[in-house]
């Protein structure tokens, strides 16, 4: 046998062994970091979940917890601290007791107590209606524009940028924290916030929490400063001589929790593909742009059906659940916020505002259905409805002036894409 052939075989075997060795991480003697998924984009259909998976982890002092975000379009933070523990000790029992009860059946005082605790942590969503320092005046723009402005400019920098506060309370001035250097977490910090997890690439949406060797065994809560107590979890620090769950066990736990969340959406998705959707006791038929489920903290970010056929000039209507845009000829995907060179985090106006001749975005904070006639898209350039949403739903109607195949996309959710085939 030629020696070259022998070498090739040896190299193939050797290379394979090396690859397997490297891929399994053999040779590393240190404890593997625990990975917690932040949000989750399901493989069968696009989703977002306001959750950590798993929501309970064990770690040894000096260990590392890696928070890895699936970029679904939502910003998240990972926030620890004694202030968080305190606030969650109020909110979590309330969620457990009243979480499944309709808002109008909750006794007076419960919601107020919940919001007081949650908003002391500067939570981004849900605390907007708290008394603000500046009251609206007659000179301010109309409600719809104010909403857009509010969405685009007013991001609290204390939560959007990394922040370390050794002793409470947490300032509510919305300014960047003076101390943004997050050292090893020892559990005594009042506020220890990752800031918005980065959107640079799939592999960059990571926050590594390094624990101090001196952290005391016990439970430490964490939550997302954007979404509040519903997205929270517990980290259990276990004494070094005690066993903790292995990486495989944690992964199995993660997957089980994910499956529990996904199952209701699967049923919703399959039903919607047949043109029907039931929400809050009401049944809807038609085309859908995003769906929700009462039992799931998340959204199903899909255009259903994925492909629509329509005649020129004929109206096509989407029923929109959740917060989305209906956009055509979209530019390269950009996230809902951008981080400036000085670290300042700003909302991307381009996501929220109507463009290309679409009517202005109506008031989003509404419990009533919103009906919008989007006019006619001529197919020539970027066009966007802007981000629309209602606690009920949005009914958005559009016509097409020119035959062709158009890709429709949501500017917030990267995998929310469909096709409209327009014929003459």
């Amino acid at each position, binding site marked *: 046998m030629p020696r070259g052939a022998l070498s090739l075989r040896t*190299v193939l075997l050797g290379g394979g062994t090396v*690859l397997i060795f490297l*891929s399994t991480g053999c040779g590393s003697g240190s404890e593997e970091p625990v990975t917690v998924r932040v949000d989750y984009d399901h*493989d069968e259909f696009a989703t977002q979940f306001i959750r950590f998976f798993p929501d309970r982890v064990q770690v040894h002092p000096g260990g590392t917890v890696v928070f890895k975000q699936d970029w679904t379009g939502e910003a998240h933070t990972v926030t620890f601290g004694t202030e968080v523990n305190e606030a969650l000790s109020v909110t979590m029992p309330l969620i457990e007791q009243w979480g499944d009860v309709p808002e109008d059946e909750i006794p007076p005082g419960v919601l107020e107590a919940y919001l007081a605790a949650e908003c002391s942590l500067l939570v981004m969503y849900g605390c907007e209606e708290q008394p603000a320092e500046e009251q609206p005046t007659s000179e301010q723009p109309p409600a719809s524009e104010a909403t857009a402005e509010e969405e685009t400019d007013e991001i609290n920098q204390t939560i959007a940028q990394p922040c370390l506060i050794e002793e409470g309370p947490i300032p509510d001035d919305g300014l960047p924290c003076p101390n943004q250097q997050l050292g090893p977490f020892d559990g005594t910090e009042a506020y220890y916030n990752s800031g918005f997890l980065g959107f640079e690439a799939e592999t960059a949406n990571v926050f590594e929490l390094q624990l101090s060797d001196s952290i005391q065994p016990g439970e430490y809560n964490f939550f997302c400063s954007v979404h509040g107590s519903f997205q929270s979890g517990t980290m259990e620090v276990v004494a070094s001589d005690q066993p903790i769950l292995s990486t495989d066990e944690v992964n199995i736990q993660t997957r089980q929790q994910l499956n529990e969340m996904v199952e209701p959406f699967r049923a919703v998705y399959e039903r919607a593909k047949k043109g029907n959707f039931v929400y809050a006791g009401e049944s809807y038929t038609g085309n859908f742009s995003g769906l929700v489920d009462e039992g799931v903290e998340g959204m199903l970010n899909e255009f259903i059906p994925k492909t629509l056929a329509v005649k020129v000039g004929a109206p096509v209507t989407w029923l929109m659940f959740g917060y989305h845009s209906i956009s055509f000829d979209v530019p390269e995907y950009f996230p809902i916020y951008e981080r400036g060179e000085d670290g300042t985090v700003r909302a991307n106006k381009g996501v929220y505002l109507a463009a290309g001749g679409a009517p202005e975005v109506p008031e989003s904070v509404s419990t009533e259905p919103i009906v919008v006639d989007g006019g006619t898209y001529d197919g020539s350039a970027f066009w966007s409805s802007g981000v629309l949403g209602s606690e009920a739903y949005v009914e958005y109607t559009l016509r097409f002036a020119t035959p062709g195949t158009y890709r429709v996309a949501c500017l917030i959710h990267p995998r929310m894409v469909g096709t409209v085939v327009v014929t003459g």
Partner: protein
Amino acid sequence: MFERPRRASGADLAFAIAFGLYALGGLLVLGQGLLAVGASLWGDLHELLHVQGLGTGLLDRVALRAADAAHSVPPGPQVVLDYVFSAVHLGIAAVLLKLRSRDWTARLLATALVGAAGVFNLTSQAALEQLTFTPLETLGQVGAHVLAGLAYVYALLLFPDGRPVPRWRPAALISLYLTATLVAVFLSIRLEGPARPATLLLFFGLLVPAAGAAAQAYRIRNTENATGQAQARLLFWALLPSVGLGIVFLVRHGLSPATNVLVGRRLPEPPVALYRIFQPAFALIPLALSAGILRYRLWDIERLLNRTTVYAIATGLLGGFYAGFVVVAQLVLGSVAASPLIDSKPAVAVTTVLFLTAFRPVRDQVQKVIDKRFNRRRYDAQVTMEKFAEGLRDEMDLAGIIGRLDIVLKEVIQPRHVSVWLRDVRGPGGRSRLA
């Protein structure tokens, strides 16, 4: 004859290492597609891959891609088509390396074929596109496309005699090849966005057959040797449909697959039409090369084919017997899992020993059948020799024996003339005489 063994040079070793890693990468990509197919069939495997995919290592990402792709696996016949295509390419690449492991034309062709096996396999490429590439994965993906594409182009320029075309002076030729390579690499690495795989496919899908056909056309015009011209003509006509398919695709679809829409979004939407057009186009090229090698008996193909056929049939027969044995045992004893005969280690050991013992006799029998059916001269010669040996028992007359020997030798090996020297052993100092 096969190449004479010689010491492996540094270049041989470097090629072996590079090719080994490259082939492993290709197999990993193909395996990922098969895993996706498996995961689409078996829910437990799908779940297992998802759990594995929660890790961050290379194999974890392979598992996650396979699990995600399980929901969009092409229909069964298309999967079969993909993997038959890949298997044929890998098989021919292995044969080429076996035939001419030190020949650079064969090496280039093998590199190209291994690359094409992975690049044109829609099932595995769709799985690959499930996740956003890390920088290393981007390098690997673009690198594999560029390497496979360029290797293909150069292999077709050099085939079959290893002499590059056009027949320019070395300096001019190097300048031409170097410029073309740099342009191709430069254009390829500048590509980005979701349309990158489609663009690479389109680029090399058009370039490879076009450059190959042009090179063979040049050979037809500039080769005086009739055999060389015939070889070039064969490959030229085989490449022409590939060029035609590429042109038809361009006319029908334009450059739309290469248009970047929805950039920055993780949308595994492989350009199916592009694959289904260029896959058959590229299947023609190795078939044409194989036809050329077979037709003109290049690179001692017969001997290898003979061996391959014999070993494949022998292995298949024994494998079939083993499978039959398992099925029968299953029918007799219940399910495989419940059968101690199948599960027990002694049973496995006995079966293995039987398999090994039976291999040689089976191989010899298969060799006989193959020779009888396809290698008639060798078979006839063997039969003639056997008959002559049998006849010797009855033949007493020396002149008769010599006469029959003369006939047999002329029949079997067709010598120009035959001489028989006989040794006289009747007394001391017996001497030889010419018969």
